[in-house]
């Protein structure tokens, strides 16, 4: 079962099937492999054209590794990453060689968490934003200048800033520069890994607004990775929840937040502090720590922390099922539990 069918008429732009990324754990002088970190462990989902799919989960659950596989910054251990190109040709990003990937780089771009680290401090905005254009064959400098000026305007920066260096800009402005750079090649898919996590709330609101506006204007498709559930809820059409390398739930945003079906999703939501002192503080429903993906628990990976766990959960791993159309969940009792939240 994959998190794909039954969602209206939109076409999938990206189809991830049984994706795995295991990192070897080595020991001894001969670097013998003694085990594996199962960073991404059998993940399948679709991203539809023009939508924002949010990806959430606690630290270490595999969000960044999933993103890096899509961009082929790391090579997947197994599985397929099917991408539909502009001409409707479907390619498997997981199988392509570096050379074959090159023409695809323009269509898939990335926005990073750290607006400071993702820009080259010794290059001007012109070079930082224009570099992907150059790499993609726009060798004419005047042409590049025009394009960079347009891109800066697009993200709300003045084109005159083109000849300044990144250090002259604030965190929010640098994130805009990072977005301009990502958009320079007219990508169709943008993978954003915690793009607003390092920003103050007021700056965060500006960048979120920019992303929403750009998506509308350019018809972009976003895979939006974040750990702040309020931010993800605000920006996403659908949300996928990961736990210890696995996809445990995926549903349209409204459904997921009002009627989660996985105990992990509901516990995660209950942990979000609501900015209203009149709402009483809820009980802590999720205790203990995330298990190591090098040594995941038996059965359902969530069973040691799940308050609904039974003996069956300790031995039998639940499969990803689709109890209602478009709502995917990996829990034996997804149909029986009532996890309705206040959201």
């Amino acid at each position, binding site marked *: 079962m994959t998190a794909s069918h039954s969602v209206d008429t939109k076409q999938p732009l990206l189809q991830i099937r049984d994706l795995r990324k295991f990192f070897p754990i080595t020991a001894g002088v001969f670097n013998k492999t003694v085990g594996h970190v199962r960073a991404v462990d059998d993940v399948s989902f679709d991203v539809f054209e023009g939508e924002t799919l949010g990806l959430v989960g606690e630290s270490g659950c595999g969000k960044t590794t999933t993103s890096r596989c899509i961009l082929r910054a790391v090579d997947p251990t197994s599985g397929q990453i099917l991408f539909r190109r502009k001409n409707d040709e479907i390619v498997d990003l997981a199988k392509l060689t570096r050379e074959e990937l090159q023409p695809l780089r323009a269509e898939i771009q990335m926005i990073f968490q750290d607006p400071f680290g993702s820009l080259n401090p010794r290059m001007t905005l012109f070079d930082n934003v224009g570099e992907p254009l150059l790499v993609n064959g726009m060798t004419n400098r005047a042409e590049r200048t025009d394009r960079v000026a347009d891109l800066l305007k697009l993200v709300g920066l003045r084109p005159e800033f083109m000849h300044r260096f990144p250090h002259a800009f604030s*965190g929010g402005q640098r994130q805009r520069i990072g977005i301009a750079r990502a958009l320079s090649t007219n990508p169709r898919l943008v993978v954003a890994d915690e793009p607003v996590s390092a920003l*103050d*709330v*007021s700056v965060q609101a500006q960048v979120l607004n920019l992303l929403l506006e750009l998506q509308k204007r350019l018809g972009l498709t976003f895979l939006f990775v974040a750990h702040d559930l309020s931010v993800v*809820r605000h920006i996403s059409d659908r949300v996928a929840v990961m736990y210890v390398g696995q996809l445990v739930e995926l549903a349209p945003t409204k459904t997921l937040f009002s009627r989660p079906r996985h105990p992990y999703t509901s516990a995660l939501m209950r*942990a979000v502090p609501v900015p209203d002192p009149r709402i009483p503080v809820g009980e802590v429903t999720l205790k203990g720590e995330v298990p190591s993906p090098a040594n995941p628990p038996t059965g359902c990976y969530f069973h040691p922390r799940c308050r609904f766990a039974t003996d069956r959960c300790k031995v039998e791993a639940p499969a990803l099922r689709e109890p209602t159309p478009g709502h995917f969940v990996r829990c034996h009792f997804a149909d029986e539990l009532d996890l309705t939240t206040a959201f």
Partner: protein
Amino acid sequence: MTAPLLSVRDLHVTFGLDEGSVRAVDGVSFDVLPGQVVGIVGESGCGKSVTMRSILQLVDEPGRIKQGEILYRMPGVDGQPETVVDLTKLAKRGPQMRAIRGAEIALIPQEPMAAFSPVHTVGDQIIEAIQLHHRQWRPDGSGLSRAEAREIVVDLFRDVGISMPDQRVDAYSWQLSGGLRQRAMIAMALSCKPRLLIADEPTTAIDVTTQAQVLALLRELQRKYGTAIIFITHDLGVIAQMANSVVVMYLGRVAEQGPVDAIFHAPKHPYTRALLRSIPSIVGQTQVALPTIAGTLPHPFNRPSGCPYHPRCDERKGPECAARVPSLKPVDQGQSVSCFLHHDSSDTQ
């Protein structure tokens, strides 16, 4: 009315740099009542950490406290009456300040790595602190053996929810996960039974689930020991859950302060109002433009004239906003605001 445990009065801290001087804290005043949780919010660079470090006389060079008082109510020892000391008058490295740091006022610093030395085990560092401040555990002044101090640390680790506490005391800080290190820091801060705990963004780097556990823990400790807490965070949700009263800072000044309910349900300062509007809510409308604050935070070398918020303010009253600095004035039960909309333009500093 209860006398405050800590009272910061008109604090000014500047950093003299080659490019000029930065007024990092520019006239901050607030009180902390015994057993109360005061939440401090404000954007990056508004002076939250510098204010807290001033309280403990830990401001980094070239920072200087230029003006103001930090009054702390010391308990009377051996039947002596309590006294009020101005911490700004104490020598940074003198015996009085050293006795206060840790034992009376403990800080959970913003940089988690700064709290522990990497070359000693976490347990050893806490044991050392407990032995140094043994009076907190043995008011009669008798010392504590290493084994006795270690016993206390194991109990503290258990209290803060560290599993396998008798093994974890022998770990180095870099061997602990983010959540465990955070808990160990809380244990360290509590190890000398402070009456005031200053937590500088203690949950910013950890997951919401771990955060929920740490917040529950702090609330429980506060109830159990009556510790007063100053809690610094960017997260308005955390403030709403933790604080009794709130101080909203902007560019080194207090924009507004008051009881938590008033700050969230009857905010008076245009900055507080704008800040509250700009957060995506877990219950609000989705995929719509969020209200934003115009412009960007000014560079510390370019402080605006008059009200520091006036260039970005969407409710600006008039020319006085750019000309004069509004002072912090009481407007309601325990709520004060620095904004001309709420008092006469003649009330300047």
